[in-house]
Structures are given as C-alpha cells and as structure tokens.
C-alpha cells in the first residue's frame, strides 16, 4: 500500500524483490493526510483474508522531480485557480491562514506554537536519527525569520529525503516474530463538509477540521476515547496543526490546544500527553508522517529514545487536508 505523491511504484518494488505475483496493492489519496489511512486499508485487507502480509511504505527523493505546487505553466485550473493567482501558493501559506484565524477566534498565540516546536526539539535531541541536533530556546524560536506570518521558520517541518515502511500481518503470524507487535485497534478517514484540499476557508467553520470528523469514527472503531491514550503522534508539517488536532480528537476543548501545549503537556519528560516523541516532522524528519507511525510502534515496543509508559498510541495524518488516523495498542 502506498499513498499519493509517491514516486516509487508497486510493480518496481515487486520486480526488484522478485515477487512472483503481488496480489494486493492500493494507493490512498491526499499525501500527508493519507499515511494512517494506508495502514488502515492494509489492516482491512488482512482482516478480510485478501492479503496475509502488507507493506505500507513512503519514499521521498526531492531531487528527482519538481514540487507539486511549482507548476511549470502559469495557466491554473481546478481548485488552485481560487487561491494561487493571489500568491497563496505554499502549504505554509495555507496553514498560516488557519493559524491566524485560530488566534483571532480563540486567542491562541505564537508562544503556544513556540512550546510545540521546543517540545519536539527536546525529543529530537535524544534521537540519533533526528536531523536537528541543537537545543532550541524560546529566543531561537522568536529570532528566526518569518516564512508566512504568523508562522516562523521553526513552525515549519524539515525538508528530508528518506524511506520508511511498516509491515502488517495477522496477529497469529505476528506472535512468532522476533519483535513484539503493535495491534491496529482502529482507524478512520474523514473529509468533513465542503472541504477543498488545503486552502479550505470556504466551509462554514474552517477550524472544524477533517480530524474532528475522523475522530468520531476513530474512537468508535477503537472502542476507546482520548482519555485512554498514553501517547500521541500528531501530524506536524506545521506547528498549528498540532494545536488543531489536539482539539479535533478531543484531548482539549476547541480553542484550548495552544494553552495545553504551552503547559508542557506534550513533553516526554513529565508531560501528561507525550507527543511526537521522536521529534516529529519539525525536528526528526519530514517523511509525510510515516515516521510518526513508526515512532508510535516504538513506544508500544518500548524502544523509543524518549520512552514513556505506553499501552496505547493515537497517530494522525495531516489534518489540514482530507485526513486519517490510527489507534495502536500493545499486542496481548
């Protein structure tokens, strides 16, 4: 299973591995919003007996092609025609617009966003695989340049090349493996009403994110609620998405996600809801959220470099776009 904006194809991998017949494959839509959905589709294929073992992967190699929003032509069709002509072009611009509105409606601040970025940096310092190796102070955060006001440099994810994979199989088969398994307890996808891909200001309430819709189905599917979750991995292409997802999935009331982050709740060291314990997209690497899923598995196996007491993990994919989410728990 792959998800969109992936340039490596199933048949290429199958040919290279010499697989005689790949009998299940698929592609979940919406890039950064899709990783958890791809894991969920894989789990469904296994649950129905369509497949026994499924690999979900993500590979990014930015040198081998242009960015999807850097169009070569200046004739812009589709939904881009309603925002690109005015220069609302980069994902950071599109999320900054929502972040500003969150500040207007709820009084969230850049101090809140700084707390998100600093917590994840603190986690990255213990992770030998993380790209960011230096501590970040509050001054470092505020001294950095604006990219799209109100967002600054460290509100934005890293630019990374990398490849990651998750292997899913039946619980019976997983019991015989060397590594302890993590069980997919539930998954969901959601778009919500009247949504566009990312520049989504045309719905009645754009802060009512796709994640708020995915959340209802996720908690039903997993048979638990936010109070049952020990650790979260929230998609953080930009720091405000963490605030919005904390609210969408019910860890905070609408408008309270920023203050919750600023209270230190997201820190592995003593926080009430450790979040993005590998450093996340802001400080580990940006691999379209696949590294968040893998860190969730590490927490359940007890192999995180910021290990917390952990029986249950919730993971989200990008929540500014049509989205997906997972609950994982320790296999019995």
């Amino acid at each position, binding site marked *: 299973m792959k998800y969109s904006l992936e340039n490596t194809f199933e048949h290429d991998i199958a040919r290279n591995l010499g697989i005689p017949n790949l009998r299940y494959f698929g592609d979940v839509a919406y890039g950064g919003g899709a990783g958890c959905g791809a894991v969920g589709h894989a789990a469904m294929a296994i649950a129905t007996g369509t497949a026994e073992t499924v690999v979900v992967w993500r590979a990014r190699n930015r040198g081998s092609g242009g960015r999807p*929003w*850097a*169009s070569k032509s*200046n*004739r*812009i*069709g*589709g*939904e*881009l*025609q*309603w*925002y*690109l*002509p*005015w*220069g*609302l*072009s*980069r994902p950071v*611009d599109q999320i*900054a*617009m*929502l972040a*500003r*509105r969150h500040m*207007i409606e709820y009084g969230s601040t850049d101090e809140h966003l700084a707390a998100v970025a600093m917590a994840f940096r603190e986690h990255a310092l213990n992770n030998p695989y993380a790209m960011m190796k230096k501590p970040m102070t509050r001054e470092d955060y505020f001294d950095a*340049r*604006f*990219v*799209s*006001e*109100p967002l600054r440099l460290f509100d934005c994810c890293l630019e990374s090349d990398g490849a990651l994979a998750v292997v899913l199989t039946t619980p019976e088969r997983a019991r015989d493996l060397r590594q302890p398994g993590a069980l997919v307890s539930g998954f969901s996808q959601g778009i919500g*009403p*009247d949504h566009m891909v990312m*520049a989504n*200001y*045309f719905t009645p309430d754009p802060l009512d994110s796709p994640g708020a819709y995915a959340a209802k189905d996720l908690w039903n599917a997993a048979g638990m609620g936010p109070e049952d979750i020990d650790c979260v991995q929230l998609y953080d292409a930009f720091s405000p998405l963490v605030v919005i997802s904390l609210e969408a999935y019910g860890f905070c009331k609408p408008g309270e996600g920023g203050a919750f982050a600023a209270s230190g709740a997201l820190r592995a060291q003593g926080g009430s809801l450790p979040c993005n314990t590998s450093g996340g997209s802001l400080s580990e690497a940006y691999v379209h959220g696949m590294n968040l899923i893998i860190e969730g598995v590490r927490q359940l196996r007890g192999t995180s470099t910021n290990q917390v007491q952990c029986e249950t993990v919730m993971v989200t994919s990008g929540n500014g776009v049509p989205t997906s989410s997972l609950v994982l728990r320790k296999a019995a």
Partner: protein
Amino acid sequence: MSSPPRPVPDPDVAGAPFWDAAARHELVLQKCTSCGTVRHPPRPMCPVCNSMESMFEQASGGGRIWSWVVAHAPVLPSFADKVPYNVVVVELEEGVRMIGNLLDVEDDAIAEGMEVVVDFEDVEEGVSLPVWRPA
C-alpha cells in the same frame, strides 16, 4: 532578470462566468436557482439541494477581513519581486469567503473585521483578479 508570468486562472465551465465578469471588473457570485443558496468557489451542483441549475448575480462588493498571512521569501519565482506581500480571506456581505490581496494598507495594519471593497487588478490581456481596498 524578469519574473516569470503570474499564475492566472484557466477557467472551467463552472468558473468561467466568474472570470468573464472579473475581466469586465464586475464581481459576481454563483447562486442556486432552485433553493437560492449562494456558493463560492463556483461548482456544478448545489451542496444544499443538489440542483445543477445556477445563475450568477452581482455581488455588493463589500466585505470584511476574515484572516490574512504575510508571505516572506522564498516564494514562487513569479511572486519573488513582491515579498513580503499579503494574502487575505474576505468574508463577503453575501456570507461567502474569497481569497485576494489587500492593497493600500501596510501589512502591519491589517486587522480582523476591517471593512474592504473590491477592486480589480489587470494581470494580463483579458484577465483581471478581484483585489481589495479599505472601505
């Protein structure tokens, strides 16, 4: 070195009446002829009553700032000579929102709820974009 040309709309069937009107410096909005719901951006079907019948009506041209960003480098090459520049979301009097640029206001002076009126910027032959100025 001159900047590459700015992105301009490549209108589809649903959006063409909006862009044709903009080229005449008129702001129009799509309205369902069955239930009267105004929608933007234009699209084939009314999300409220699922009617495929619609018309375009002149908008009042007034609205308020709903949110905004100020973009800094690096941006797309066609906008590189403008940085820093603002992009705003305007909530129109008709209730729909629209993306644009706010002219004649320092970026630091933009505020939520600021009253604005539409104007038009001619970007190339036959193509004009709605932009906004203080009311």
